[in-house]
């Protein structure tokens, strides 16, 4: 499943880095466009992850 490969904590970390970069006046305007596009994609994936059904663990059979 695609969700299993998604590393939520890593995505949030990247989002934090993007926010810091966008806030940095030294970042070029050309780069900001790419950063915003990336952050939108990450936000979407993270929000979906919170609502996604992950792979089940199977409960023990009750004898």
């Amino acid at each position: 499943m695609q969700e299993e490969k998604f590393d939520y904590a890593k995505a949030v970390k990247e989002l934090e880095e993007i926010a810091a970069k966008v806030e940095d006046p030294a970042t070029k305007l050309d780069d900001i466009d790419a950063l915003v596009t990336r952050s939108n994609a990450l936000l979407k994936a993270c929000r979906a992850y919170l609502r996604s059904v992950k792979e089940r663990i199977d409960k023990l059979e009750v004898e």
Partner: protein
Amino acid sequence: MAKEYWALSELLARVKEGVEDAFPDRYWVKAEIGSWSPRANGHCYLNLTESEKGKPVADIRAMIWKWNYPQLKDFFEQETGQKLQAGITVLVRVQVHFSEMFGMSLFIDDIDPAFTVGEQALAKKKAIEKLTAGGYLEMQQELVLPRLPYRLAVITSKTAAGYGDFRRHLLENEAGYAFQLDLYEALMQGDQAPASIISALLEAQERPYDAILILRGGGSEMDLACFDDYDLAVAIAICPVPVVTAIGHDRDFHIADLVANRYVKTPTALADLFLDAYAAEDALLDGLETRVRRAVAERLNAMARKVDALAQRLRFTAGGRIDRELAALALKEALIKSSDPRKILSMGYALVTGPEGKVLKGVAPLAVGDRIGVRFADGAVKATVEDVESDARSGRA
């Protein structure tokens, strides 16, 4: 050879007399309730027992008459928050009674709830001391609930109203967060509850759950002693998965709560614990989104401000240039005006044009007989050249 004998009833009547003479008053007695059976007729029949090191050393039948029973039961349960039932230690006031038909029994007419509360507090205190000494209180505290708990095992009674509330609240959340929820059924009240919960706990920890929840979820508020059970407390403490309890009792904490990773009061609060973890993540994401948006907006605003400033500067600079151009133009105009030939002509000079009508600046192109035009300020004449004299240095017409 007839022996002397008593009729049984006579003997027992004497026994009765002797017993009642020996115990004429009512006495406060400490005992454990062995069996307990309230009857349809309103009376309550029970056994009072005493054990030493797990072995019974005393046992007697007792009863509470129906005219005492309801008040006595209500009073006890209200004061102790505990059900009056088998297994608890009580201090009761008794009257010793002997019946020729039924033998010895004790009539109970009063009970001291404070004593039971004290006994239980003492037992609880001892259990807590033992758990503390064994290092059991900190064990669950060392476990960390995952940032996003997803796989949850719930130990509860399937029929408990609280389980339905919890399930609904957790799974039908408006935000749409998803969870895996597995039910492990156990008895949640009575003598058998601790063993039943321990067995469910052992079963659940075989799987990689993020948390194991012990949810009482309803039932009698009276029957909570099982959550003070020492063995259950140890089982919770040594569980390798974080255990969250929701036993739901405001009056007091329970030992199960004390050893668990954390505890809440109600099934709804239990669901909120997990929903809040997800909502906090959502809020974090919103915050990051806002940060990015704001930074971009600020950047764009700054750019807009820069463009405005530039435009203004440009307008200002361009304006200066135009003014300068206008001034220069005015100067030229003045110059042109001042060099208007008519102005010169009016001063007594004349303008001479050659045969082709071109203005002549000297005599050189002219020959005798050429026709020339002479322009004055107020008119012109045509003339013919009769003689040409050239000055050596400059020619003048």
